[in-house]
């Protein structure tokens, strides 16, 4: 971030002060030169924290109670040890088939 000073007409005018060097940044030594000081402004020097251009801020669909319930459930899932996946995740037919058994 960089700071930019601007000059503007002194809002203080010619008010007396105990030390003439006070407000020197706001008012130049030569009163004939108009000073225009604006408050410091800050400009970003990078774009890393810019929001994505298509960002839309919406309300969370779940209320806070359900968020807590889901979070507790996820924490319990994270704590349990992960089991190794079976080799054949997808059955041969690509979908579930009823098993034909004889009674």
């Amino acid at each position, binding site marked *: 971030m960089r700071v930019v000073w601007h000059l503007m007409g002194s809002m203080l005018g010619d008010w007396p002060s105990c030390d003439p060097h006070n407000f020197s940044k706001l008012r130049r030594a030569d009163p004939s030169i108009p000073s225009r000081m604006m408050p410091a402004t800050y400009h970003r020097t990078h774009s890393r924290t810019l929001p994505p251009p298509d960002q839309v801020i919406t309300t969370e669909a*779940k*209320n*806070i*109670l*359900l968020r*807590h*319930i*889901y979070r*507790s*459930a996820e924490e*319990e*899932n994270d*704590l*349990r*040890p992960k089991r190794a996946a079976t080799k054949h995740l997808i059955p041969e037919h690509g979908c579930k088939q*009823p*098993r*034909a*058994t*004889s*009674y």
Partner: protein
Amino acid sequence: MFRRNNIASRIFQRQIYTPAPGTSVYCARRFYENLVPSCTIYDVECPDQSFRKFTDDGQYLISFSRNQQDLVVYRPTWLSFSCKEEDCDAHDLPPKAKRFESFFTHLYSVSLASCNGNELICKDFFLYVESNQYGIIATSTPSIHDAAANGAAIQGVPYVEKLTFHLIRLEDGVILDVKVFHNDFVNLTHNMGVFLYDDLLAIASLRNQTIHILQIRDSGNLVDVRAIGAFCREDDELFLNSNAQCIAFPDKSKLHQLPGNNVQNGTHLSQPNQEDSLLSGIKQRLLSFIFQGISNEEKDPALRAQWLKKKFYFRFQDYVDLIIWKVQFLDRQHLLIKFGSVDGGVSRNADQHTAFLAVYNMETTEIVAFYQNSAEELYLLFERFCDHFHTASKNSVSMNFVSSHSNNIHALEQIRSVKSKASSQFMKKMLGSLPYSCQSLSPSPYFDQSLFRFDEKLISASDRPRQSTDHPIKFILRRQPCSLKFKIKLGPEAGNADGRTKKIASFLFHPFLPLALSIQQTLFLQQPSVVNIHFRG
């Protein structure tokens, strides 16, 4: 900020100061400290009816005829009379003002239960759809106990031959739609078995163990959305039937060997044989979730089987025998379902039975969480987020400002002080109120615990009747000077001569007017109830 008690000062202050963001309703409510129902008309002459409640928008007073066949609707108004004397405050109300009709205008009466049949209106049940001003009233035939279970019905649960829900437009009393259940049982006492959330209605059938989800359309139609019980998704029944067909008929040449009542001509089977059927629907979801949860508790795979044997299989039949007791919406997708034993489902003292609470996602058909009814984790959620259990419709402004221990420091201090004395029993008792019954709390500002302090054993926002008391019920200002603002007395100063008869009292508070009805009934005697009107004089 210095707050004056004088109403004129408050009005001037309201002209100058803007309430802090999000507090405009609470700031406006402070005027109720000045406008209280301090006058009472005792034993007002009124029709002999069962007054049920004021609708949450204050537009109607719902009442049922004594014979439980007619719905009677009144419009709350306000008495108006003028006094031409100089000192009007000293004068009492004229006799003509002390009438029921001065406060309530009869709009219409609608006959709902046929006098030929044996149907009666369930006078403990009423739901209000505020957005459209629709009312839901139920009529049913008498319940039959000790009925044998057949089909999917549960043994031990009574049933009624016919139960009808009527959707009525309260503006004119027109019946828009009905939903009929045959040979079923829904607990309608104080709206326990039915939950309304926005335009969705959940009806818990205890007998057939099904949660019926209906939608109330703006046109006034009741539309079936889904039925959760034996099936979870809309096409589960189709899949299971086609599956059963494949299992039953692997070889069509063997058709003649199958039992006759399961086969007609080799075509569609209605339902698998119950004795052979696997657990399906929500019961399967529930047991799977319990199994996974218990399995995950034991991290050592070598010990897991023993752990499951001890914790799951040993209690397997108890889990299978769990039935749905009660249900409520947590939002449009999630249900909070209470499971328990058959005995507890029909018992009046359900708190003594062990019960479980499950959170179910209707869209994914998954159980998200499962708690015992004394679980501390659930109690902490209940203590912090009680308002999210009291799911109020977005359309109902007044219901979003009912005092609870989650939004009111006084209510929270009260329960914490009780909890510190008897923790585990207290947690179980508090969780016993879950799932909540719909529209069971009054939105009246006089029950706002930031404004008034009152004895909750004698009166509260809940519409359940309580044991009557001869002593006046005091409403004391919460702020300084903590003065008595008004009293609700159920009888004149002399009290009741006969103190032996047991009486119960119920209170109906208007949602925003300083107007309330107190109704005193004598148990076990066929005496008409005594109705008092409390209003701001």
